[in-house]
């Protein structure tokens, strides 16, 4: 185990939380999975009810009591907090001295969200990620590896969530070389270094050590496009893979489908289809979702996913589009155990995938709402908020 084993903040009150979060195999559902998960949710709800006055009044207003969680069908009764709400207010269920880390979301739409974590709430998702990597055979302690990171080169005192994650990702295989695609300008900003990225890829392709490419899809796409224009075609060593996440970062207008990007990676870097992978996660919901070799985000044992109708918020059956609602008991520092994401998604039964994982998977369909894509007045909203 590379990640320190997380220490339960209160083993008496949160025993089931610990059990859920430390499930070793992400998708190995068993007879007790649901019961333990329900108990864990009850524990975490009582926890936040106790320590967060805001959460307490939210439950009161919704007439909700964790005692009413009898089976998994009751999960939809847990009030959901929109992820965006955490960007507006700092809601903490622990004392300041127990806070180990405050992460700022990189904010696709210009806002920065600050979320605080205690030791447990950081370590639990980190160890989950390690288990995801392990499942994919990506924990290779004895293979020196080159890294190209499509993420912000760290400032000495960075607190940006994505950089933290990507550096963290480098610990599963020993580092030979690390190249950042988004280099520091020295004035607090970052600049995309296309030719540096190409040069690094050219060098990495001549080595025996495999290469790992992590980070934002947009800048990888720009690199590959440039390589195509310059007629550069490489074959990265066997064992190389791409693991992307974090969205298109303000380049939605230029975004291409995952399929197209994967094809481009295969074409320009010689990395096979099944080794071009995607991750989904958020500062407001840290459970690591890693797509399967068939590129689907299956629901791990550590969380549950509901899709809610956009008008009534009622839970939707498989295949229908609605708000993406995550539930997971993993977090003790902030009442973010039931979070409504800003994305639209749909949920699908496992057999629609066929990769062998038995849990359902979700497809992210794009941002929920019109703030991002309305042609008229609405689009101004983001800038307006910034002016606050």
């Amino acid at each position, binding site marked *: 185990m590379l990640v320190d084993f997380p220490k339960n903040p209160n083993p008496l009150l949160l025993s089931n939380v610990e059990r859920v979060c430390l499930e070793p195999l992400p998708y190995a559902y068993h007879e007790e999975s649901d019961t333990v998960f329900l108990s864990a949710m009850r524990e975490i709800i009582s926890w936040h009810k106790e320590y967060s006055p*805001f959460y307490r*009044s*939210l439950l009161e*207003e919704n007439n909700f009591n964790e005692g009413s969680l009898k089976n998994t069908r009751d999960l939809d009764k847990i009030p*959901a*907090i*929109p992820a*965006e*709400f955490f960007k*507006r*207010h700092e809601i903490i269920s622990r004392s300041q001295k127990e806070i180990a880390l405050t992460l700022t979301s990189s904010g696709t739409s210009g806002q920065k969200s600050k979320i605080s974590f205690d030791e447990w709430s950081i370590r639990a998702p980190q160890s989950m990620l390690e288990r995801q990597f392990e499942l994919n055979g990506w924990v290779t302690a004895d293979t020196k590896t080159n890294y190209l990171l499509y993420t912000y080169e760290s400032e000495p005192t960075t607190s940006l969530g994505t950089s933290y994650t990507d550096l963290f990702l480098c610990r599963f295989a020993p580092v030979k070389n690390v190249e950042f695609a988004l280099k520091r300008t020295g004035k607090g900003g970052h600049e995309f270094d296309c030719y540096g990225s190409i040069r690094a890829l050219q060098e990495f392709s001549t080595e025996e050590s495999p290469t790992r490419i992590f980070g934002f899809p947009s800048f990888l796409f720009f690199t590959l496009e440039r390589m195509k224009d310059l007629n550069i075609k490489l074959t990265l060593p066997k064992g190389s893979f791409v693991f992307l996440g974090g969205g298109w970062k303000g380049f*939605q*207008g230029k975004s291409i489908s995952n399929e197209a990007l994967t094809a481009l990676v295969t074409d320009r870097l010689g990395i096979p289809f099944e080794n071009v992978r995607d991750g989904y996660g958020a500062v407001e919901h840290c459970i690591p979702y890693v797509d399967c070799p068939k590129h689907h985000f299956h629901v791990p044992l550590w969380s549950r996913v509901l899709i809610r109708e*956009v*008008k009534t*918020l009622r839970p939707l059956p498989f295949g229908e*589009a609605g*708000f993406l609602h995550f539930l997971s008991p993993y977090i003790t520092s902030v009442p973010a155990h039931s979070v*409504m994401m*800003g994305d*639209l998604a749909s949920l699908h039964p496992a057999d629609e995938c066929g990769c062998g994982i038995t849990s359902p998977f979700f497809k992210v369909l794009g941002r*929920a*709402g*019109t*703030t991002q*894509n*309305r*042609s*008229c*007045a*609405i*689009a*101004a*909203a983001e*800038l*307006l*908020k910034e*002016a*606050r």
Partner: protein
Amino acid sequence: MKQFLWQGELCALSLWTEKVKEIEKVRSHLLNPLELDTVLKACTSLQNQLREGALRETFLTTLLEKGNLDEKESKETIEEIISFIDRKTLEEKIARELCAGDASRSAFRLERATYQQNIFEAWQPLGFLVHIAPKNAINLPFFAVLEGLITGNISFLKLPEEDFGFSTLCLHSLAANDETRNLKNYLYAAALSPKDHNTLQAILREADGVSVWGGEGALEAIRQLTPLHARWIDWGPKISFAYLDPAAINEKTLENLAREICAFEQQSCSSPQVIYVDTEDWDTLNAFAKNLFPILKKISQETPRLKSPQLNEQAEITRVDSLTRLEKTWDKKSTAVYCEEDFRLYVEKDSHLKTSPLFRTAWIKPLPRKNILDTLTPMRHYLQTAGISVKRENLTDTIKLLNTAGVNRVTEIGTMLSSYAGEPHDGVYALERFCKRVSVRLEGSETNFLGSLEEWATPKESLPPKGEVQNKELFQTQTVAKEFSDLFFKSGGSTGKPKLSIFTYADYHAQMRAAANGLLAAGLDPKTDRAVNFFAAGGLYGGFLSFFTILETLKAPQIPMAMHPDFSFVAESIVQLKATALLGMPSYLLRLFEEEKDTLKNYRGIKKIFYGGEHLNPAQIEYLKHTFGIEHIQSAAYGGNDTGPIGFQCLHSQGGVHHLLEELHQMEILRLDSDEHVKGQEEGRIVLTSKIRHGQNISRYDTEDVGRWTLDNGQCPCGRRQPKFELRGRTGDIFRAGGFFINSRNLTRTLSNEGYPGEVQFLIQSRKHVGGDTVLLRASESIGWDPERIRSLCLAHDKTLFEAVQENEITFICEVVPKSDLLRSERTSKLKLILDERQ
């Protein structure tokens, strides 16, 4: 996209790749400028086709079947087009946007900017204009292109990928209604994928202007493809709000506000998204929301849903609703929620302007007047309309505060969504943004008497006027709509009830502006002259008023006298006010000089005379010049009561010779005995078609004047390229004898030029036995001229008469009789010039 529009023609998609390669050649059509009149005529013709008939059906079917509109919406869409393309509306729009409201100005002609300096200015189309159309408005793309066309721009319309072809249909139909076939060269449209950057970039490379509608992201993407030489014309996202003082509103205001919130599901940029209340007090704010709630509930029930929110729009509503409800949980003293299923009011304690998820959703926020500037200024890029309701004593100050903060449109609550023709959009006039203002400065003295540089331009070919020749009677029986009836002048008609010639103010001023340039050409110098206006005033006469306006247009100093009967007062005034130029009718002016001979002889300050309405013969001109030291005598204008001014004299035009005021009229000279055009310099009837007149139609109007084109046509030494013609009399002056047209006016002019001061009369009789006619010229005995002298003068000066006598078709006899033997009209006692005694 199934089809695209290229040079006004619908083309199959398979041709696109080939056609778009020709984009570099499109600008060359600018060499054949698109005339405003061409566009307006096509609009009128299209307008008629849309009122009823096959094209209307095609439009309706397209909207119903491809656009998924219902029948009511489809009809409304067509009605909107019919009213937008109305000629008068478009002309008013141009006048307001490009002529500072002066409808008489010609926006696109290189006209004088001032008569005090030789400066000329005009609006010039940018050239090739690319329009990037929005997705959310059906008619907007067509209207935007039309605005480009009326400003003379070649237009490429980029439509959204999912376009259903309605805009293309509109443009194609417009081109099909153009008789000149030039409009089509100015029209291109295609639906393109926003990701097809290469094609878009190739098109934009040719652009002189890019007019972009859309969200911030779309705008930014286009901006990056836009070359520096293209003007950036952006119509980005805007936000509107209501601003009200709770002490200045009543139930009616709240109802109007509720209607604004429900109208069009707030899809318009001018729909209120925030309601600002002039208060700092949370309870006042909440009380306002509580008052509005039941009224909004009632109005919302009454207002049918225009459309239901799409998935993402509904997600936005729910997202905002969930967040706002949580905010209320967080702090009940800073957020309140008043919702029903079909509308939402959210009260927030802070003042920040923010967007609403629409579909009957509004934020209610406090904004004390003193904070308007600080709160709104950071948002100035996005501000559009403020609907206001405040106390009268605060009204103007509040409006000014809002304007300073960046709001460019203020209305009452209740009219936020409706606009008026020619209203500025987002703080600017669209048409101005599609044009550039060009200036020319030619300080050389040769332009001193030039009103417009267009007078030196190569004449443009125009289509010959169509239709029947119109006589005076036909003209006078027209009924004129009230909207075109501003000014009433007498249209001749000496018998019975006066007939009227009716003008709009705009037409009157356009005519006076042209005539002012004519007077300038004739030698009036507004910088040095001081003019006395002696034309007749009142009693439906247009003379005095017209010249008042002409002199005012020229900014020439003016002494308004009209036909004042007190000659000594008039003469004293001329001397005292140091007048240098007289404008009037010859009969009045001659009498003035006669009555006040001594005063005016001594004064010798009058240097110029500009006459109108009658003729001055060379003897009279010589007399005036010699006796009173007048240096310059010229016709002030040639015109008519019905037609307005027609021609003017330049310094190289004498007698009846004039240039045509070509910006006002198209002139034909038709044969005396048929409606054929004359050949060469043959005399004929002057027939006019007005280019500008509204209401009372001047279409192939027979002026009853006789004229001929002159030799130096197009090559006048003054440099003007307007056609030149010579007036030769009235059609009533012409009689046919022995198969020849004899112009009696030519004979009287000859005699008068030779110094014969009296009257003559013509008698025409059939010759017995031999065929042909006898023409008997009777002169007044008392003058004492020898009839033989008269006869030989006439034969020497009138080629036609000489020829007819030579060929023995006419017997020409002259005799002198007592003055009393000359026959006169019983009613007016005017001399009858021609007596036809043939059976």
